[in-house]
């Protein structure tokens, strides 16, 4: 039997020591009425046959298209050493580091990950990560609710709609008020956001670049929030953060991110990485695991899980969150990725992404009837274009010819049925941008 090493002789010996007549007798406590009504599963297969089956399924997925899909999830180059190192079994077959002396590898890596992400966001404290960028945003909002004792969340409509629907599912039983402030042609309405802050507001929630790719400086909004006792919560894109004004520089209290762009494959939606950082004032509200540095009995530096008294295994129903793990392996990959690129490599990556996107925007808006949705508002590696036809039509036509031209914003925004969200990364070649532009020109004729 695969992965079970016991021979019939071993089993006889073990039953002898236990004093049980048979393996079946070990299950005698399960009453007849609780026995399975069916257990109709296929017979086992060889490793070769299972792999052949999965290879056949993998082939049914079209992954060789030229793709301009982003929407918060990007196809970046992952250095080979990220796979090689994160696949060391000492990392990936370990459990949560409950025994710190036997887990210094995982613990130091998480400590270094915490350091790296705080440097990126410019806020002083980080946790060991949560499931994804959306759960990080929800947990960040809950930090604000606990910190302020207030129950209203003011959310910019240009925050990823994927995260906003998660936020509304999660908060539906928690008696919170979600106020959504409409975007203006893909840009955040800073005046309306500022106006919406009041004495009941726990947090103002924004994103940079926002879902439309538009960039903002939220410094004034965050200052107004601070004056009103409101927590500033921002979701960012870590790759671009190497060049963009940091949440810390803008005066944010909590900064979260989807860490997928840091060494994690797209992998059809997960596993991803929820990055969470905050300033000192809010660190006691941080959910999830955190690693801290300390010393051993000999005075040597070592690392432990810390501030555990906030967590579910001690606080039970009074815990800051029910989260009891982190995305350790994904955080490790992100850290290795950041170390391999370094400051220079990440900056070059960001600049290349932005350069390609600006080139693509130039080529596409040269086509009759194609305009940037946000006019001359600055954007990073992604931008929205309005088309003279429904975006789905263009997607259908182009994807049949091997180009997935972007994401149809009409899926989430009423009135934007003709708008396409186009993303570039360092992997997007200028040739493929040229092909896309020519195909689009043809499709709109």
């Amino acid at each position, binding site marked *: 039997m695969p992965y079970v090493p016991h021979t019939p002789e071993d089993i006889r010996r073990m039953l002898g020591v236990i004093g049980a007549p048979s393996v079946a007798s070990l299950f005698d406590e399960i009453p007849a009425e609780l026995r399975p009504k069916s257990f109709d599963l296929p017979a086992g297969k060889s490793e070769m046959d299972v792999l052949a089956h999965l290879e056949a399924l993998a082939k049914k997925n079209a992954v060789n298209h030229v793709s301009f899909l982003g929407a918060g999830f990007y196809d970046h180059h992952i250095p080979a050493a990220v796979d090689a190192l994160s696949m060391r079994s000492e990392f990936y077959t370990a459990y949560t580091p409950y025994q710190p002396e036997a887990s210094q590898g995982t613990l130091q890596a998480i400590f270094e990950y915490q350091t790296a992400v705080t440097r990126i966001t410019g806020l002083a404290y980080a946790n060991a990560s949560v499931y994804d960028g959306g759960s990080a945003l929800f947990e960040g909002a809950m930090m604000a609710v606990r910190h302020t004792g207030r129950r209203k969340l003011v959310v910019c409509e240009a925050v990823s709609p994927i995260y906003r629907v998660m936020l509304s599912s999660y908060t539906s039983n928690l008696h919170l008020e979600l106020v959504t402030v409409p975007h203006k042609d893909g840009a955040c309405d800073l005046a309306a956001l500022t106006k919406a802050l009041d004495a009941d507001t726990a947090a103002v929630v924004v994103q940079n670049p926002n879902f439309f790719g538009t960039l903002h400086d939220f410094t004034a909004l965050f200052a107004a929030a601070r004056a009103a006792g409101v927590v500033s919560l921002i979701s960012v894109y870590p790759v671009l953060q190497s060049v963009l004004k940091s949440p810390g520089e803008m005066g944010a209290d909590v900064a979260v991110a989807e860490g997928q762009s840091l060494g994690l494959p797209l992998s059809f939606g997960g596993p991803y990485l929820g990055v969470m950082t905050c300033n000192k004032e809010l660190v*006691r509200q941080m959910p999830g695991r955190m690693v801290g540095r300390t010393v051993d009995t000999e005075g040597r530096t070592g690392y432990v899980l810390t501030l555990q008294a*906030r967590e579910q295994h001690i606080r039970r129903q009074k815990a800051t969150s029910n989260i009891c793990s982190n995305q350790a392996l994904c955080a490790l990959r992100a850290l290795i990725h950041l170390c391999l690129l370094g400051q220079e490599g990440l900056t070059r990556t960001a600049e290349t992404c932005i350069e390609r996107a600006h080139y693509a925007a130039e080529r596409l808006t040269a086509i009759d009837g194609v305009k940037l949705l946000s006019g001359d508002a600055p954007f990073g590696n992604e931008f929205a274009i309005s088309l003279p036809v429904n975006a789905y039509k263009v997607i259908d036509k182009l994807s049949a010819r091997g180009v997935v031209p972007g994401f149809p914003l009409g899926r989430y925004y009423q009135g934007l049925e003709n708008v396409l969200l186009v993303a570039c990364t360092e992997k997007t070649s200028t040739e493929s941008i040229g092909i896309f532009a020519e195909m689009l020109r043809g499709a709109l004729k």
Partner: protein
Amino acid sequence: MIPNDLKYAKSHEWAKIEGDVATIGITHFAQEQLGDLTFIDLPKVGATLTAGAEMGSVESVKAASELYAPVSGTVTEVNAALENAPEAVNQDPYNSGWMLKVKLASAPADLLDAAAYADVCAAEAH
């Protein structure tokens, strides 16, 4: 380790009543049960306390425990030193480990004297 001049709550807080002001903290027994304290969450100056209601919490590495107000009144002073040195509560719970000064709203009721509190501790230790 149960001073005679203090009053005690069954939930292991002590109160030193001087006129209409009470100084409050947690007892030696409580700090010993919790182990080395790592964080103390206290109400702010101006907060209103109700005797028997939750007023904050203390954390150690492996435990967390709520604090209950032994008296009713308004917080007039918080021991700020505890923020960076919670160990004072372990080392000297009745003096430098004090937590709050409270202007009493009413005369404290239902507090135990040292002998009665000693019985509470003895019962819990078993």
